Structure formats: C-alpha cells, structure tokens
C-alpha cells in the first residue's frame, strides 16, 4: 500500500511519455520560396496551385525551405519532394493532397511543362479576373438526374423524376436535352374537393404524362463561398431555355361518366434558372426553378344536353369528343423546382495554361 504513490507516479510518467515522442524540433523560420521562381532551367511544375500534387519521380524538385527531408526508406515516388509548400508533408507526418482527392486533375498523371514552349503559344489578349476556374466545362458532357416538384399548382401536383443531358460547347454555353416523367405521380389535392363541396363549382384539372425539351444553357455567374470560415466550395448559376413537347390530358371532373380523355401532344417552351454547387471537379448538386409554358387543353365546364343515342358526331351528344374540350386558349405555366446531381464527363481536364 505504501508503494501506491510511486506506482501512480510511474503510471503518470508512462502516460506522458508519448507526448515526448510526438515532439519535433523547431524548424528555422524561413520565408517560403515560390516553387516556380526557384525552379531550375526551363522545367517547372505545371501548376503552383495549393491543390498541386507531388510530381512523379524524376521531376525537377523546386527549392523550398519548408520541404522536409525525404525519409531514407521511402520509395522513389515518395522520395521526390512535392513542389508546393502546403502539399508536402508525407515525410513530416503530413498528408499528400492526392491521397485525399486522387481525382484532381493534377493528380491524374505526372507532367512537366516546358515553359519555353508554353511561352511561344498564342495567348488570349483578354485577362480574366479569375484565370483558372475551378471546373472547366467546355467540351464536357453533363448528365443531370433530378427530381422535380410543382411550385405553382394548388390543384394537382405534377412531381416527376427527370434527366438532362448537356454538352458544353464553350465554358459558358451548352446545348442539351431534358425530359420529365410525370405519369403515376400526378396528385390531386384535397383543396379541390373542399371547393367542389363548399361552393358547388369544379375546377378543370389536367394530368401530365411526359415532357421533353431541347435546351440551351448559359452560365453567366460563378463564384465561391467559404463555409463556416473553414472550407471553400465553388458554385455557378445558369439560365436555360428551349422548346419541346409535353403530353397532358384533362381529368374528367365535369362529366366523368361520358368523357374519357386521351393524351394530347402540346408544344411547350421552357425557361429556367439554376444554381450548381461543386463537390469536386466532376460532381455537383443542382437546384433549379423551371417554368414550362404551353397552351393547355382543358375540360369544358358545360355538358352537351342531348341524348347519348344521337349520332356520335352530333354536337348535342355528350359522348362526342368535340364537346369535351373548352374552346378557349389557356396559357399554362408549370413552375417546378428541380433538385438533383450533375456529373461531368470526362471526369478530368487540363488547364490550357499554368496558373
């Protein structure tokens, strides 16, 4: 029992021992030297971005005062010091950025850029405020599955899964197709029933089956946000518009005994505005509001007063389909909110010029 204090003290010392093992000698403070500036001759890392990965073995290592010494037992690739100050660290207990996000373009393959050859290339005279956007969309395909919910129809909701396929001709302009499948998801609201029962009126309703459009997309805005002052993500905003077809049919509300509607093909125009948040350089989340505008064919609120035994082409016969539709023009806006994902293919790209 008298030894208890000594054992406790020994236990405390043993627990504290690992702290000593983690301690490192303080490095001499030196100002970081930009890798490119310190490069020798005409070879330099292709990109001095903070995301820069380590080049493959054999690449000319830039001088950097913060570079840790390569461990003696490291293999050839690991032994090559990385170019950027914050991307080093494998030998110092740090972590290579390429081990975290191996899909980064600069991690796909080691590369060297001949600065002399690059300097001879034609350079666009226009200088952009942001020289390298996070995602290059030009000449890439975008596959965008989404789910759309109705925003403006209190009577019937037309929710739908959808798919958009776009090809970006330039960084800001794309052409593509999109389609929505509504059939089976049209949902009449209780609100209609309440109105019919209370006021003895019926509102003509329509179901949708499918729609498809040829669209052009323009991306006028992009930017980035810092989240909680800690991480940064990139986004862009786009507008799109096009023309296509939508198949709809009235729900027989006024005379359901005699009216059996079939689907109608109607020309529609669509316009939208969307917001895309990039998770990485090929995957993003999208949020879009789209208005599908078309001239709807709705059920007539009047019923032919003749007998059903009259000739079928008689306008007095309630079985005559010509009497089922309202003759007026009904411009309809189906405003929907789309939430989905955006996949860019190919998943990697190369910047035309070093940053």
């Amino acid at each position: 029992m008298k030894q208890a204090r000594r054992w406790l003290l020994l236990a405390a010392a043993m627990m504290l021992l690992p702290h000593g093992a983690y301690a490192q000698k303080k490095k001499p403070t030196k100002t970081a030297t930009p890798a490119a500036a310190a490069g020798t001759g005409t070879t330099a890392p292709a990109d001095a971005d903070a995301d820069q990965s380590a080049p493959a073995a054999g690449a000319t290592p830039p001088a950097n005062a913060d570079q840790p010494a390569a461990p003696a037992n490291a293999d050839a690739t690991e032994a090559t010091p990385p170019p950027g100050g914050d991307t080093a660290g494998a030998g110092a207990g740090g972590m290579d950025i390429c081990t975290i996000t191996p899909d980064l373009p600069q991690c796909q393959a080691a590369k060297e850029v001949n600065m002399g050859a690059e300097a001879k290339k034609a350079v666009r005279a226009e200088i952009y405020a942001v020289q390298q956007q996070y995602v290059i969309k030009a000449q890439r395909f975008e596959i965008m599955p989404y789910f759309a919910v109705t925003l403006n129809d209190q009577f019937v909701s037309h929710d739908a899964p959808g798919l958009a396929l776009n090809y970006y001709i330039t960084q800001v302009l794309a052409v593509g197709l999109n389609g929505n499948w509504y059939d089976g998801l049209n949902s009449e609201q209780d609100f209609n029933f309440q109105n019919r029962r209370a006021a003895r009126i019926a509102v003509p309703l329509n179901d949708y089956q499918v729609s498809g459009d040829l669209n052009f997309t323009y991306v006028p805005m992009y930017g980035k946000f810092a989240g909680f002052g800690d991480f940064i993500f990139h986004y862009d905003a786009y507008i799109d518009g096009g023309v296509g077809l939508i198949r709809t049919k009235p729900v027989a509300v006024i005379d359901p005994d005699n009216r059996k509607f079939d689907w109608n093909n109607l020309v529609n125009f669509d316009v939208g505005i969307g917001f895309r948040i990039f998770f990485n350089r090929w995957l993003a989340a999208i949020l879009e509001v789209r208005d599908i505008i078309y001239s709807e064919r709705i059920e007539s609120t009047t019923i032919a007063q003749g007998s059903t035994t009259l000739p079928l082409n008689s306008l007095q016969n309630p079985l005559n389909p010509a009497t089922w539709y309202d003759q007026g023009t009904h411009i309809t806006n189906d405003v929907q909110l789309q939430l989905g994902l955006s996949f860019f293919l190919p998943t990697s790209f190369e910047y035309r010029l070093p940053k």
Partner: protein
Amino acid sequence: MKRRFVSAVLAVLAMAAILTAWGRADAQELQVTGPLKGAPAVRQLRLYREGRLEIAPTISFTLLDEYRRTILAGAQLNYAIKDWIAIGVWGAAGVVSSPTDLSDQINKVAPRDPLTAVNVIHSGTPYGNNGSVPNFDQQTAQMQYVIAPQITFIPFRGKLAIFNKVFVDADFYAAGGVGFVGIKERGNCTACSTPQSFQLASSTKVAPTFGVGFKFYPAGWWSLGVEYRALPFSWNLSGFDSRGSGPGGNFPDQKIDSQDESFVFNQMVTISLGFYLPTEPKISE
C-alpha cells in the same frame, strides 16, 4: 493529512495524464505544412455584418396563394454579434391584398342557393345570384401584419462573378424565429347562413418562421437581399365550413369555428435593401 494530500495530488496527476494522453491519441489531423500552415480559409475578409446594425426596408410577396395574395411592406432590424450570427426583428404590414383568379371564378360561377348559403357570401333571402354583390373575396382571410423576432445564421460567405465583369461579395443566411401574425378571417358563428355571419374577425396567430436568403454587397454600406420565408400556421383561408361532424370530423357541421382551419405553409419571397451602421466594414486579419 500530508500523506492524504500527496496521494490526492498524485491521483489528480495520474488522471490528468490519462485524459491528456487520450486526447492526444484521438487528434489525428491533417498536417498542413508550408506557408499555408495554420492560415485561415480567407484572409483580409471584409466583415460586412460583425458589429454592425442593419436597417433594411423590405417588400414581400406571398406565394402559392389559393384565394388572396398579399404584398407586405416592412423592415428588418438586425445587429450582428459576429459575422456569422445576428439577432433582430422583422416587421411588415399587408399593403396590397388582391383576390386570386380562383376567388373571381367562385364569385362568378358558384350558385347562391340553400346548398351554398353557409359557404358563399350572399345578399340574403333569396341568396342573390352568381356574381352578385357582395363579392366572394370579402369572406376570404387576409394577412394584416407580421412581427418576427429572429436569429440569423450566416454560414456561407463568398463572392460571385457576373459575365466575368462584375464582382460582388455575397453571403447566404438562414433565419429563424417566432412570428406574431395579425390576420382577419371569417368569424366563428353558429347561425352561419346569414349575410352577417360572413364578416371577418381579427386575431393574432403565433407561428414559427424561418427563411433562407442571399445578401449581395455592391458596396460596404448597403446590400441587396433576396429571401424565401415560410410562416406555417392554420387558418380558414376561404371561410368555408369544411369540418366538424361525421366520421373523423371531416364533414361540414353548419358552423364556422377553429375546426374549419387548414394548415398552410404561408410562403413568401422578400426583397430587401440593407443599410449598415457604421458604414465602413471591419477587415479580418
């Protein structure tokens, strides 16, 4: 006594050693080295909100209205304790209230007869005709005012480029609080087929309110905001007798009371123009 003291000190030291050892073992963080080691995500950030008072006139437009749409004019007053949190209040009054097309259609088409006498306003015996005065929209509920103390969180702060020419700072925020909503809806009645029973009565609803929005800062002393907001609560928008009897109380009972209210999300979009005091924002390190 001395022995007990030494034992206690040793025990505390041992416990501290164990706890600190556990803490160290769990801290497997990404080791960033080089010039960016320990650096914040953004340097020299303009702190548009921190320590500043925001006075923002607002105009709000209700969305997805069934019988009546409302435009509310008001203002927000916010004080940001930090750049990511602010406390404040939003107040607005309904300045424009107009019937929807559905209200017009009901007024025009709905018959005035004994079957609709409880639900559709009429001029008395013998009920009047379709489209007659008084109009149906006189029985539909109206939003009079909103006062909402709220807390605003600003998790995202950034910038955007428009046409590669115009650059503005922006932030994204979420606000939540309690809304005190002054409304007018058809008053409770038991003899509800008389013209007098269609008169509106004032009341105050207490409801949660929440919204998300963007603020754009073209300059340090003013901003432009766009916000989506919801004020969910139950009220009788149409003035109909919808519930109160039968199985589950889902059938009309010829009375107007709280059972005839329906839960409505009450969505709106708000545009604001914010002005800040002091006029110069702070700059982070």
